[in-house]
């Protein structure tokens, strides 16, 4: 795991931004927990700093912590940024916790244009709004879709535009929780 967030990168970032903490996932994978406020600053710092040069956003995704067996059970949505530097060939993982009540995380599409599509997908599937994103709209689900599917408490719709979802007489044991409101 050394290349993931080795101490050199962490110390450099911590020196610059005291609010950032270096944490370890359950299997020891290190990442930087960044508060929502100075995400954009950290991102800009990581991209422009000579010794770091994280010029590529490998992946920007999120996962719902609702049912995750973490010690203080939290219902936030963790937005994960996986960065890579083609120059120094090292990686770093940033995480930002967006509370379920008002999920808003500043957009990083200013730093990496690739984030435009990633953020639209996270908004579509998780409902995390990214203020500052030029065209934040649903990318995967139809535009009049209700609810954000990848949340753990998502209820599957019964029908769409009046056409039933399941086939008649079709029943699954242990089927997904249904009952969401149908557009």
């Amino acid at each position, binding site marked *: 795991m050394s290349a993931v967030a080795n101490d050199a990168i962490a110390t450099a970032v911590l020196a610059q931004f005291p609010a950032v903490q270096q944490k370890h996932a359950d299997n020891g994978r290190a990442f930087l927990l960044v508060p929502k406020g100075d995400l954009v600053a950290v991102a800009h710092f990581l991209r422009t700093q000579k010794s770091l040069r994280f010029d590529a956003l490998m992946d920007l995704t999120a996962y719902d912590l609702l049912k995750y067996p973490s010690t203080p059970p939290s219902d936030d949505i963790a937005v994960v940024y996986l960065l890579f530097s083609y120059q120094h060939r090292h990686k770093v993982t940033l995480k930002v916790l967006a509370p379920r009540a008002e999920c808003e995380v500043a957009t990083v599409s200013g730093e990496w244009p690739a984030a435009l599509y990633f953020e639209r997908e996270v908004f579509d599937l998780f409902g995390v709004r990214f203020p500052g994103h030029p065209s934040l709209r649903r990318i995967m689900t139809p535009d009049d879709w209700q609810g954000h599917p990848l949340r753990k408490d998502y209820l599957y719709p019964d029908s769409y535009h009046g056409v039933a979802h399941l086939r*008649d007489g079709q029943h699954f044991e242990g089927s997904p929780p249904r009952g969401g409101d149908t557009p």
Partner: protein
Amino acid sequence: MTTDERPGNRADEQVHMAAVDEFLAWGKEHSLFYLLFATACCGIELMQAGGPRYDVDRLGMIPRATPRQADLMIVAGTITHKMAGRVRTLWEQMTEPRWVVSMGSCANSGGPFSKWSYSVLNGIDKYVPVDIYIPGCPPRPEALIDGVMALRERVKRYRTVGERDRTPYIVAGPEAPFGGHCKVPDFTAKKPDGGGGGSA
């Protein structure tokens, strides 16, 4: 269940077609132009079927891009809720002697995505009247040709005048209108044909 048990072929349903109808039906049978409608994995098998090894052009089937010139719509691949309206519009833009073949489990009944997916339509016969269902995921090009051979049985009995034999027919012998009695949209409703061209 051999050929003569196909619907319409049974003794009681023997129908005498006028000579001209029979000749026209022979023409239709040997030149089914299929609409290029490849959405997912079955689309690749549809391309392979058009390729040199299985060569559906040998059976007189050419891929046509516009629904106006196509007789047969092969729905090859997964149809999601967002795409379903387009399938319906394309089917309406096709000119009259038209047939629909549902290729692959995704089109038959939602296949791998029927249980856990929220966005996949479980079977396209909720939107368009399907004539032939071809099981498989993806079905081999030979299974597709097997399905087309079964469709030819029906094309043979197409009568220009009179009621069309609309019962959907599963290539696996007797027809199984998948989810037959779920809410079937009435296909005769005349949707205002937007002037929009071939592509929906």
